[in-house]
């Protein structure tokens, strides 16, 4: 049976620390301002009875993905395992996918990511601190924390200007039998990732034992990121 990957986020376990966000940035070489793993905070109630929720967000790898439907070149496409991924080499940068995605998780590169590490020679203290360019030259990488593994399978390890990018469910890690970076980094074990077609997998069991919810169910996109528990 083909695999069908999904993720559960246990809101009761989540402490809102943002480790998922940082792990995702390191793993996927995303620049400042582009966060594949993010969160939304909503405040409810009337003072003094005020409460808020913290909901981690990422691409839902929707079964009925509007971003895939509208893409004129199949740059945004679905793999056999159900990952919704992007091929920058055929993206025309029309941003239709961003307009069609009701979750706002696709980002557009207005400039080459980390380009300042190739061009910026200014330093905070002249002859005292490294410039960005020196840091890049010394570390022999496009920028100091560069993860070359992200470039597996021909994907642009650092995305150039003019195309979009988004969470890939860490497909490069899953291909090697590893869990996504945000799942591994979560200190509260709030994230469960796995094959929903495998009856013995933890994700299948937890989904059965709980009443999972998804974001914007009324959009009919059939997300594969599920939420259980409550933040409060």
């Amino acid at each position, binding site marked *: 049976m083909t695999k069908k990957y999904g993720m559960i986020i246990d809101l009761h376990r989540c402490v809102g620390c943002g480790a998922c966000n940082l792990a995702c940035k390191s793993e996927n070489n995303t620049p400042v301002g582009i966060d594949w793993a993010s969160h939304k905070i909503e405040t409810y109630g009337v003072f003094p009875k005020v409460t808020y929720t913290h909901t981690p967000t990422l691409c839902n790898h929707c079964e009925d993905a509007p971003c895939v439907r509208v893409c004129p070149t*199949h*740059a945004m496409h679905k793999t056999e395992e159900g990952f919704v991924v992007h091929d920058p080499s055929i993206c025309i940068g*029309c941003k*239709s996918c961003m*307009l*069609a995605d009701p979750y706002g998780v696709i980002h557009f590169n207005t400039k080459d990511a980390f380009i300042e590490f190739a061009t910026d020679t200014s330093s905070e203290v002249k002859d005292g601190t490294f410039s960005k360019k020196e840091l890049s030259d010394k570390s022999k990488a496009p920028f100091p924390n560069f993860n070359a593994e992200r470039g597996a399978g021909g994907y642009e390890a650092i995305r150039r*200007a003019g195309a979009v990018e988004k969470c890939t469910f860490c497909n490069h890690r899953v291909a090697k039998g590893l869990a996504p970076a945000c799942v591994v980094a979560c200190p509260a074990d709030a994230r469960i990732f796995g094959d929903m077609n495998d009856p013995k997998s933890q994700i299948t069991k937890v989904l059965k034992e709980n009443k999972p919810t998804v974001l914007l169910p009324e959009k009919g996109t059939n997300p594969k990121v599920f939420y259980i528990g409550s933040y409060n």
Partner: protein
Amino acid sequence: MYLLWDIRVSLDLFLGGLGVGAFLMGAVLYYIDAKIYEGIVKKAFIFAPLLVMAGLVLLLSELGRPMNVIKTLYAINPTSFMSVGIFLQLTFVALSLYIAFSVLTKGTVILCAKVVYTCAILAGLVGLYHGFLLSGIAREPWNNAMPVIFFVSSILAGSSLILLLNINSAEEVAKKFKLPIVINMVLTLELAAIFAWVYNLALTTASSKHIYDVLMSSFGVEFWGLSIVVGLIIPLTLFTLVLLGKTTFKSVFVLASIAIVVGSFFLKNLVVYLGQMA
């Protein structure tokens, strides 16, 4: 607000609409009598591809990776209106350029009627595509009224432009084809389509109601003033006065035609902008 689709997309839809509207007007007159209306048909067939191409150039400049557009020719996605639309527009431009070249060098009589017919169908499809491009993305304000609103607006603006380019023969055409009645019918159809669109926004879902409130509170001048009053009500009133015998077609058609063209741009620009606020 950061716009994913800026004014260049609106201009593409506006200029493309002018182009296909102009071509359709030219095609109608070509079939009625290519000889009598040679001057008008010529201008319509020459301006049509130029306008559509100008729009496409603006659109290309808005794309992040315009060189990749060539890849849309083989990486086709049948569920994407943009993918289908690129084919339609390229075929229309190629065929209408051929027609424009033939008309420039040999006149209208030599034209093959079947080629003009095929190109007119393509023009109609491109005119509809402009609206489907938006409704296919399925954001709240871009609902199913889009194809009708955009197509009718394109026909109105394109044919008004052709009248403006043929000031000397416009009155004769207007008399022969009872243009004030025809244009008023199409203007009324456009008003009805816009009413259906706004009515739908006002009554459907919580987010569509929110968009309706934004439209009424923040875009009153663009919607009521420029799109409805300038683009539709003023020409409708002027042509009604002509029908009532209070004035002549000659004295109002320039003002009415300019108002229709200007209104078409503001309406399309407003719709493109509003969709991105949802």
